[in-house]
Each structure stands twice: as C-alpha cells, then as structure tokens.
C-alpha cells in the first residue's frame, strides 16, 4: 500500500527561487520566515497549498512561497480564494492581505468571507498605512496621523480589524506583533488546524512610511508590560513579573495586581476563546492597555463547504438525474414525426 502520510518537508521546500523585494528591516520578512517555518509543521502536502493575494506590499507574498499561488487584483483576494476553496475543498488556502486591501477596497469581500466561514486562513498585514502607493492613510490609520494624503492629520476614525471581524461573525481571530516569529509560527499552525475562516492580524511595522507605529506595544523593552498574550483556559496574566491581570468590574475590564487588594491569581479572568458569546472577545480586542495578542476567538461551526457538500449529497440521493441527458429528455418533451 502506498504511504499516504504527508512527507516531512523543511523550510527550504517551501522557499521559492524568487528574490524577496521588500524594504530592508520590514516585518514582512518576519511573517514570511514564520510561514515558511510553519508550513512543514501543518501536515499538508505542498501541492495542496495555495496562496492568494490582492495588491499591496503584503500581496507579493505568494511569489515567495513555493506552492501554488495567485497575485490577484486589489481587494479581491478573499473572493478569489473563496472560489479556489469552493472548487476544491481539499486545498489549504491562504490569503495574504493588508489593511487597505482587506478593509478599504476589499471591505465587502472581507466581511462576507468571514460571514460565510469557508475554511480559509487570512493573514492581515496591518501597518496602518498604504505602503506600495507610498504613504497615504489607510482605514486603520489613527486620528491625527500625518501622511502624504493627510498632511495636516488624518480626520477619518479608524477601524479596529478585530472588531470589524467580530461584527462580520468571524469564528477565529488572533493578533500578533510583527516582531515575534516564534509565536507567529505557532499561530499559523493553529490557524491551519482551525476548521473555518481564520483571521490573523499581524501588527506589521512599515519602516519607511509609518516606522514605529506599534513600538509602544511591541518593542522588546516594553512588550511584556504592554501586551497580554492570551491562551485558551489560562488566566489573563501579563507584566514582566507576571503579576498583573484582568478582572471584570461591572461591564468593563479592570487591571489588577496580584498581591494587592487581596487579589490572587485565581481571581483573574480565565480566557475562553471557544465561548460562542463574543462580548468578552470584543472587549479584549478593544483593550489598548494591555494590548491583547494570541488567539482571542476560536469557535468552530460547520464551514460553508461542509454545508454545501452535505446539501449536494442530499440532492444527489433524491435525484433521478446523473447525466445531463437525463435532464434534457425529462419532463415536457414532444416528438416531431
């Protein structure tokens, strides 16, 4: 019998022969390396991996992975990927997209792909700026941000990607700093394992047009104090000394210190990523201090392709038609003699 187990791939198996052309120092390199490390761990055949992208710096991604891939048109990656997955549900389909690509020009596809819950993985490179068009504000740029198209400061309030995703009924949402390859690699593997649309927001620093936009959260010196990395089933603890945590105070999250005011570790909130009710996930997404990273939401339910397959089987078993001739010659036909 042929061995159907997936062969053990290495980083190099997924590395394409194309020269990577992002700016030196860009977090995109971290994302690419994390992905190339994650892919061999996914138990997916190389020929079954498909990367789809739209337009933007992030969207060059498919060229750098030696798998099947398509560099599409601006904003449409999620829709192209939906077609790929519906055509062949056995494929592992990935979308590489940016904040402009996914939430401005492609906003409609972004919300609908999340609503439908196809088993796709979307990596959202959020750098709060338009890079490839050289520095205009994006739908995640903060108020007051000075850019080439907002020289006096941005007046358009931003989206919070996670909040938009939850509103669109996302089942899997994770957030990760662009400078943490180890955690990112693990997240990519978790996203692939999750059955349904996974959205991973990477806080990706653009060294040229928006350098340092996440430094307050992601810089090594402050990261432990500023970020709370959640794990399902674990208490919400953060801080260099692991001494801070979150509790629920009325309808808001409150930061407490273990050992103060009789607070013990067991008083802290325990993260439940699998809770269907999204209110806590929503609160975690919107928290700015600490900034929550990790898998915030992970709630499985049937995917679109599963629902479609089930329905197709049902229709097939109730139908007398198996070939088109059965249809063409059925019903109201008549003979001309």
């Amino acid at each position, binding site marked *: 019998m042929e061995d159907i187990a997936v062969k053990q791939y290495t980083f190099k198996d997924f590395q394409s022969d194309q020269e990577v052309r992002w700016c030196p120092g860009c977090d995109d390199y971290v994302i690419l390396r994390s992905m190339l490390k994650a892919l061999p761990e996914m138990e997916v055949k190389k020929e079954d991996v498909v990367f789809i992208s739209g337009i933007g710096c992030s969207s060059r991604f498919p060229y750098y992975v030696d*798998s099947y891939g398509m560099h599409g048109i601006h904003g449409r990656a999620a829709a192209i990927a939906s*077609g790929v*997955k*519906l*055509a*062949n549900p056995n494929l592992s389909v990935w979308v590489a997209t940016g904040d402009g690509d996914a939430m401005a020009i492609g906003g409609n596809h972004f919300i609908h792909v999340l609503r439908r819950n196809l088993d796709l993985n979307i990596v959202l490179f959020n750098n709060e700026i338009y890079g490839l068009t050289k520095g205009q504000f994006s739908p995640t740029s903060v108020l007051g941000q000075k850019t080439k198209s907002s020289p006096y400061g941005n007046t358009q309030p931003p989206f919070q990607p996670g909040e938009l995703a939850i509103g669109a009924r996302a089942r899997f949402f994770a957030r990760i700093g662009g400078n943490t390859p180890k955690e990112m690699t693990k997240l990519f593997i978790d996203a692939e394992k999750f059955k349904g649309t996974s959205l991973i927001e990477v806080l990706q620093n653009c060294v040229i047009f928006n350098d340092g936009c996440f430094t307050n959260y992601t810089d090594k010196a402050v990261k432990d104090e500023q970020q709370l990395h959640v794990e399902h089933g674990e208490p919400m603890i953060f801080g260099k000394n692991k001494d801070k945590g979150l509790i629920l105070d009325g309808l808001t999250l409150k930061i407490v210190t273990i050992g103060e005011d009789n607070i013990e570790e067991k008083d802290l909130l325990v993260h439940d990523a699998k809770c269907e009710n999204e209110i806590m996930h929503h609160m975690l997404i919107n928290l700015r201090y600490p900034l929550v990273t990790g898998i915030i939401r992970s709630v499985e339910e049937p995917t679109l392709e599963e629902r479609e397959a089930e329905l197709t089987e049902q229709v097939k078993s109730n139908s007398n038609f198996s070939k088109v001739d059965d249809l063409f*010659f059925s019903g109201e036909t008549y003979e*001309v003699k």
Partner: protein
Amino acid sequence: MTLDKTKTTAKKKVEQVNAVVIRFVGDSGDGMQLTGTQFTDTSAMFGNDVATFPNYPSEIRAPQGSLYGVSGFQVHIGSVEISTPGDDLDLLVAMNPAGLKTNLKAVKAGHTIIVDTDSFTKKNLQKAEYETNPLEDGSLENYRVIEVAMTSLTREALKGLGLDNKSIVRSKNMFALGMVYWMYGRDMKHTLDFFEKKFKFKPIIAEANSKVIKTGYFFAETLELIPNSYSIAPSTMPKGTYRIVNGNTATAWGFLAAAEKSGLELYLGSYPITPATDILHELVKHKHFGVKAFQAEDEIAGITSTIGAAFAGDLAITTTSGPGLALKGEAIGLAMMTELPIVVVNVQRGGPSTGLPTRTEQSDLLQAMYGRNGESPVIVIAASSPADCFDYAFEASKLALEHMTPVILLTDGYIANGSEPWKIKSIKDMPDIKPNIITNDSEGYGPFDRDNDSLARNWAIPGTPGLEHRIGGLEKNEFTGNVSHDPLNHESMTNIRAEKVKRVENYIPDLTPEYAEEGDLLVVGWGGTYGSLHSAVRDMSKDGYKIGHAHFHYINPMSKNTADVFSRFKKIIVCELNKGQLSFVLKGKFNQYDFLQYNKVQGLPFSVIDLKAKFKTLIKED
C-alpha cells in the same frame, strides 16, 4: 366594423391559416405569462413552430390597472417556419383597459381584440388615462372587438365551489385561454394535465382552473360573436424529440453539457441582475450534477471567485448583464493576463447605466470588445436565438478551456426570455472538449509553456505534485513566467496574447450567408436579431430580390472568410439594436467596404416589416 350581435350561425366554419400572432396582456398579477406559456406549449406539442416574447414591467407588482404595470406575453405560431415572436397582432387578449391602451397599436386593422368588459370600470379607465370608454366611443371601429364579461362568467362558473373571491378572480385568465384554445382548435388536455400536476395538493384550485378553462372554451364555441375558428396545421420541422426552451435555460444547459463533456466540474459565481438571474436560478437546481453555484456578495466577487475556481481546475463561469460587465472589467483583465479559462455571460439589456432593465438592446458589444485597461483582447461570441444559446454556451466553454482565455458570451433580454422549440441535443452529439491540463513535470514544466498551434498555455491545477507555480496580474517573463518589467518582453507578451486570440480563427467555422452567396444587398447582423433579419431576408428572397443574410456569431476573432463574403455584394447594411457598434468594428477592420447602418434603440426587437421596407429602398436606389 360593427358586429351584428343577434345573428346566429348554425355551424361555425374553420379557416386555414399559416401563422398567427397572439398577445395576452393584463396586470402584472393577472397570470399572463402562465397563460401565454400554456398556449405555447400546447401549440408546440401539436406540432406548430413557435416563438415567444414575454414583456413585463421591472416593478414586481406595479399598482393595479396602471399603464406601466401591464404585463404581456406574445406568441407566434405557425405551420411554416417561425423565426420571431412576430410583429403585428392577429389577436389581442386584453384583461384590462391599461392593457388595451398600451397594446392597441400593435393590432392589425380588422383583426380581433378580446376584452374583459368587467374590468372596464370607471376607476380602471381613469388609471389607464382613458377619458371615454373605448368600448363605447367608437375608437375601436377598425377592429373586431369581442366583449366578454370574463370576471362575472368566471364567478358564475365557480359558484358553490367555496373559493374566496381573490382565487376566483385570479382564474379568469383561464377563461381567456379557454376561448383562445377554441378559436385556434387547440386541445385543452396539456393544460388540464398541468393543473392536476401543479395543484396536486390543492385539488380545489385544480378543479376551479379546469372548470374555468372549459367554460371559456365552450363559451367561445357558442358565442355568435366568433363566427369561425382557425386551423394551423403542424409545421414541417426536422424529426426528433423537442422541448420548448428559453434562452437563459438553454444557456445554463449548454454549460451543464460542456462540464460533462470536458470532465470538469461546473462552477458559477454570480450576483443577481436582470435579465441574467434566471441562469443562476437554473444552475442552482443542479447540485445532482455537482454544480457549484455561488451567489456572491457583488459582481466583482462573482467573477473573481470564478477566476479562483478556474485556477483550481473547474469549468468556471460568471453571468451578468451590462452594468455588471462594467464592474467585472478589471477582473476580466486579470483572467486574460493570467490566461485562465473563464466564461463571462452578458445578457444584454437596455443601457446606459441602469437603463431599461427588462428591455432588450445590443449595446454592450464595444464594452465586451474593449472595456478593459491595457491591451487585453478576449474572445467575444454571441448567441442568436433562444435555442442556440445552448450551442454557444457550450462553444464558449470549449474555446475558453482549449485556448486558455476568457470568453465573453453575449446574449440579450429578447432571446434570454423568449422561447422556441429546441431539438434536444444529446451529450453524445456534442463535440469533444479537450482542456490543456498537464499532470506531470517530466518535461521541465513552465506555467507559460504553450501549445505551438493555438498558443494556449499549459494548465497545471493546484493539487498536482511538482507543478507548483505562481501567476498574477503583473507582466511575466515569456519563458520563465516570473515577474518581469523588461520593455521588450512586455511587447512580446502583448503580441503573444493578441496572437493567441487571433488564432482562434483557425478553429471556428466560416461565415456563411443565407439565401444568397452574392447579390445586391448583404444584410449583416449579430446576436439576438437573427430571427427578424432572417425573416425579412427570407421573404424578400422569395420575392426574387438578390439579398443575403450574414449573421455573426464570432465577433472576436471573426471568421477568416469574412472579407470574401463582403466582397460579393453590391451593398452591405449592418443592422443592430444600438447606434452602430458592430459597424464600428467592421469599419476599423475592413475599411475597403462601405457599411450602411440600420439602428434602433427603443428597447424592442426589429420589426420585420420595417426591415423589409428599408432593404427594398436600398435595392431600388440603384
């Protein structure tokens, strides 16, 4: 013409006719489409050739009795070849004053109008903007008007059945149908069977409808106002098994056949738009064939998901109408650049912008040809009748899959909603479809390696080991397929993509003019005007004119013998339901010929009478 209502005829005469045109009109809720369809099916099964044309408002249930809420169904039946739903009417059945007012002009002088007098109330007359009652003011003098109190007679017939008033009034269309069945010697059996099947679980409704149609039938038989009935002999169509199809159904079925023949699964990505939506409605039914029909969030997702499905190895199509084609333009460019096989169906409607959604027009030809950024030729073909939508949907799939290029298939609202007999084609009678799929990398595969003859690139489908590759909208190197901005490479790739589409001319049939190989006048058309042009040329040819008809199904590229056909006629006239779009293309390609134009943009098909008048003038001018 006044009719003597007192005179009786002992036995009614039967008059032989070759063809008749009948139109049923009423409120959009009056069931005119059903009435017309029943008459059509019954006539077709009797052996007549038929062609139909429904005409309905874009409002779903327009205010009752209003002029813009009139829904109509026209059917042309004959013992002779029928190519169009007909121009002027032999019989108009008007269920209300608004229907009479909006359709009267189409009735031939001296011919018959049946009206439901019960609906000619003061209120309805006002809604139809009649100042005086046309049944009383002499304005219908030139017609033979049969006044029937259909609503009251229907109510009378259904007395004691226990039906509510609404259901009673709703079945009056069957009274009208019964009358018309008697007048044209039709058997009621098909319709009676239809009721039984349709209302299997509502036997009272089936009984009511059967009762009303019979009442109408016998009423006509005894009514002195109708002195005779007509007989239309079966036509001499080729032997075989037939069914009545409309263009949208035939289009959908053509794709089903192409999927089965090519061995690929069918994917449809679509967003609802009039008048293309019925193709989606049809294909979603066929999950038993494994059809994946995806109603997307917008037109763009409709086509881009289609591109994704094509990349993943399906026969992938998207369906739309004019405004949707505009939205899909950029994505067609992507499919063209990545050289993926997709079919884009554009069921044209009146434009520009939202235009006339439920009316027909041929004004998207230039959009299909040129409506994209950059040098981006695609194959453009057009279906020409309801039934041949089947063949051209199949052909569009074959060309896309074998030449690795997007194909735009143009149909229009007229043939999409119109119906005619289709001599059913079995899958075994259809030509093979051989997509250029490769499954191993033994010969150093490159995604842009091409077939030497057709220039179609290899199709390596995700899931195939060893053939992993990336494609995209950026220009790529001619040999490696890698992204390239090299100036000479770009020019070379631009030429290759153009040449690939041009070489399709080696795989398509010649243009063959009908009725004359040479002569005084060549009538040129494309798409859904075939029936009207064909009828006009046929009639004139019979009368001895040296006139031919060349109808284009292949617009990009064109058949190789096109210039040769043009050279054999003294004059060429290009007839289109637009302001001259094919003319524009022809003038650019064949500037050695003078192309005269005949254009109409009223949202309506050509009138055969008008066409003949125009053609005769042109021939006489010499």
